[in-house]
């Protein structure tokens, strides 16, 4: 069970949230000219890191707002929470 600090509502149980997968995955803008390879990369390919992971979560049963979470996928410890659109703290590695 994770305790997630929603940037707007404060600490809440993970069951109030939905995980939207990895952050830093912007939808390509030039969709008319996109190759199949680039579409496949965007739609399906994932970093799926072991360790530090940047994710997007939504407070589905709360304020219903999206935000970003920095979490370790081995210890499950959440190290940072930052608002959607903000730069990830500590760099984009």
């Amino acid at each position, binding site marked *: 069970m994770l305790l997630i600090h929603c940037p707007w509502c404060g600490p809440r149980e993970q069951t109030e949230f939905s995980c939207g997968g990895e952050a830093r995955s912007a939808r390509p803008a030039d969709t008319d000219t996109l190759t199949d390879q680039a579409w496949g990369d965007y739609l399906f390919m994932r970093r799926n*890191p072991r360790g530090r992971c940047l*994710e997007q979560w939504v407070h589905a049963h709360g304020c219903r707002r999206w935000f970003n979470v920095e979490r370790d996928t081995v210890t499950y410890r959440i190290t940072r929470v930052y608002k959607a659109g903000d730069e990830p703290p500590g760099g984009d590695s």
Partner: protein
Amino acid sequence: MNRYSLRSLVRNARNRHEGWQAAWRNPDPKREYDVVIVGGGAHGLATAYYLAKEHGVTNVAVLEKGWIGGGNTGRNTTIIRSNYLSDDATHLYEKSMQLWQGLAQDLNFNVMFSQRGVLNLGHTLQEMRDITRRVGANRLNGVDGEVLTAAQVKAIVPIINTAPDARYPILGASLQRRGGVARHDAVAWGYARGADARGVDVVQNCEVTGIRRDGAQVVGVETRRGFIKAKKVGVVAAGHSSVLAAMLDLRLPIVSRPLQALVSEPIKPVLHTVVMSNAVHGYISQSDKGELVIGGGVDAYAGYGQRGSFSVIEATLAAIVELFPTLSRVRMNRQWGGIVDVCPDACPIIGLTPVKGLYFNCGWGTGGFKATPGSGWVFAHTIARDRPHELNAAFSLDRFFTGRLIDEHGAAGVAH
């Protein structure tokens, strides 16, 4: 290899059972192999076994970072069935089912394969329509299946609650009589012993830390026990597939998630078949020791920690008690998690990669155990011939770029 038989049992009994050999050697890795398999779960061991048996490739090592079968092979609920919906998936899992049916004899090792039948319950009219469609598709593909009414389900499983006023009433089920369970550890041990007897080195405590290539050609693997040269490398690393792919800057369409299972205290026989439910999301069977073996859904987030959320355990047990109110006071003895490699279409990736001589077998997600023999069989073919078998041709990584996905998510009678 000591062949197991009634005669060998009698002969060893005369020596107070002190003459049994170890089931497989525990060799140090050689410096070079024709094929290195990364991952000593049952899929990897089966791959090595069929490489030796079907293709005569015996200069093979299976490298396991822990102990064999210590990962997902020993962490699942051992359900075996082949009642998938799409033709591609059905053919693959049915190949596996046919291998299961002769596996104990083939391996000379009792894998305790028990064809006790698998029920997939339907709780809504739409679910019953889907079940009817899937059973029809199964039978057209030569896979056995029957559609049962709630009364027929009750006759098979007397402790199930088929009351019409249940919150999610049971309207019927599909039944695959050839489905069942097997002993997961025995599957790993049997394949390890069989592969070892044919000359394969099963190397434990040998974590792969890098995959070395020369241009577009794989040349070997870096391990905790030094560099091992290999002409071909097959990666069968389940939840850690993305980690291995990242060593070569490859990305996979996989998310690793914790999937939990539980066993209860042993109780007297109450359930002689496998019961699965999509709607309430739980599945259950009873082991030969009397424990109830219970599983449910994956966690909502990615994780490599081999443990999951309490909320998932709660939801799973709520589902089981919904189906079997009489089990509400049974205590759970143990609970654990495995890291499953979930693909967007809930189907595996078995095939070639952009790197020559490197092959991946991953993405089995929540349902890999049942596929163990077939997975090893087609992967061995793919590695030996450097091209997929027709059974796994559709399961290429390429399908995520062409768009030809094999959509089994939610279609396969599975509680995914």
